[in-house]
């Protein structure tokens, strides 16, 4: 089990959608959770579609350990065609879903073979992929990916921007996930809650800075 909020623990194999408006704190929330779990011994795979690997590593600072943290950078390659891969950083493009899928799978294998059984995967964010590819294609991709997460007993978070997609897209995506961490902003205050078929928490107020999200 993995605690993500004071009242919420996730089972292994969970696929969680992280949903909310821009600047509501969801990306910082997921990043800091990723940082905490990897520093506790989890293997981490972070898929970036909006920032480069280098800027994420800068954010991680002293917590960056290439043995434990693997990054799939879907930004740099489309800007610099000749960006090279390393053992822990792979470059793909947002439209190459097969490439992203194969690299995630390879990292899962590496963790598995080195005896690391607890793995956290973050997809930051699905909204960028949905800007380039149609819903059906993204659904097929996620069908395979969420299945792999269940098989390996990992925990995965997928960030989706509120307001960027129509109702049908959100409803379709929700079918793939075991729960949702939802963010909202009201009167300048930010809130978070967890929703799944079995649990729904109350909205909790949060404080967000550039390094962490704290439930007030």
């Amino acid at each position: 089990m993995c605690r993500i909020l004071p009242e919420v623990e996730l089972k292994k194999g969970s696929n969680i959608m992280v949903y909310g408006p821009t600047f509501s704190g969801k990306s910082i929330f997921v990043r800091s959770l990723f940082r905490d779990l990897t520093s506790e011994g989890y293997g981490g795979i972070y898929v970036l579609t909006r920032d480069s690997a280098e800027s994420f590593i800068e954010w991680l600072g002293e917590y960056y350990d290439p043995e434990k943290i693997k990054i799939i950078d879907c930004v740099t390659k489309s800007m610099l065609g000749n960006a090279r891969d390393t053992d822990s950083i792979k470059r793909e493009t947002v439209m190459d879903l097969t490439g992203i899928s194969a690299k995630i799978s390879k990292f899962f294998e590496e963790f598995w073979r080195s005896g690391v059984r607890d793995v956290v995967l973050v997809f930051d964010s699905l909204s960028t992929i949905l800007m380039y590819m149609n819903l059906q294609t993204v659904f097929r991709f996620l069908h395979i990916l969420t299945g792999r997460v269940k098989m390996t007993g990992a925990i995965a978070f997928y960030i989706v921007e509120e307001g960027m997609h129509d109702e049908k897209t959100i409803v379709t995506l929700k079918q793939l996930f075991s729960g949702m961490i939802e963010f909202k902003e009201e009167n300048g205050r930010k809130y978070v809650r967890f929703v799944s078929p079995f649990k729904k928490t109350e909205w909790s107020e949060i404080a967000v800075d550039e390094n962490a999200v704290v439930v007030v």
Partner: protein
Amino acid sequence: MKVVTGIPVLDDMVEEIPEGKVLTYWIDPEVEGNVFAMQTLFTNLESGCKCAYFTLTLSPEVVLSEFEEFGWVVGSYENFTLVDLYSPYVGMPSTCSLNADPSNRDAVDSLVKKTIRENDLVVIPISSMIDVCGEEVAELLGEWCETAANSGSRLVFTFVSWPYPGNVKKMVANRSNAIVKVGGVHHRVILGYYYGLVKVDWKNIKSRAILFKLVRPGGVRAYIPKILVTGPYNAGKSTFVHAVSTRAISVDRLGTTVALDHGHLEYRGFSIDLFGTPGQERFDPILRMLGKEALGVILVVDSTKPETFPRAKQMLEEVAHFGLPYVVAANKQDLPDALSPEEIRKRMFLPEDVPVIPVSAIKGEGVYRVIDALLELLTGSWQVSGDEFEIPA
């Protein structure tokens, strides 16, 4: 002009891609299978064929750099054409003279046909086309194949088998004269990668699977799967390896193995290498080293000596670290005081899903059942089967 696949072992099987034929690489979504088509293209480019490559999800610059990663500088060949359906799709100016907007079905159709007529070999990523242009694009395949047949060109399709509707998969399979499945050996994670010929209509060939690795630079390299045979001292590992192998060698001193047993086995279309480790604790580092590379483990136990089971469990824990599937060979079942497989399961606290197979390695009884059980554990996808295709008789 002879056009080949350029893939190790595969060329020995199919010899060539004849004029007018379509070869499809049918790729597991979690495997980097596109490299197969890139290697086929480059091999023929080098031998002077006119080759064209369509891109939909990568910019022309990224395509060229991906080829270069494998040591294939395709951009320097005059007989190479890159057809760009990516740049118009994302609204960027194309650097390629041949380009079209994939949302314009007619423009794509006529560009594909023109490219087929002007080249000896054309690589088309069919699944990317379906993803970007829609499933209706599969209906155009018939005419493209006909154009290839009439102009004496050859088509290589890459088809990533995402969960598309069955009729789409059937359409692609039915239009292919040859299908090469590029898959993963699925356990909890993908432990290895294989390819195998599922269908070919110009040769009568018995299918076999070949494991591969991708080498940068170099491309697709075939390799032989390693199975680790381990177990306590005097459990009968060497006898097992010799009983099951078509050829085997052991490094012995005073009648016991002090280095390795090595056996080779041709079985169910696979070439398999068996590595037996010595049972004494001082050789455990060898066990750990081999565990990193192996695909599966056979644990041989002496059914008449339950006092060795704790050591057997300890050896299993050494390799369990690598997360490999394993089978227990309950050896020496020909002896009167041998425990039954169920009794061994109970005493070793083995989970129900671990096969415990009764074996008499010295008589060669049950040894292939052990191999069968291990292959079974590596899941059905390890077998090259045509189940997901509608293969015409």
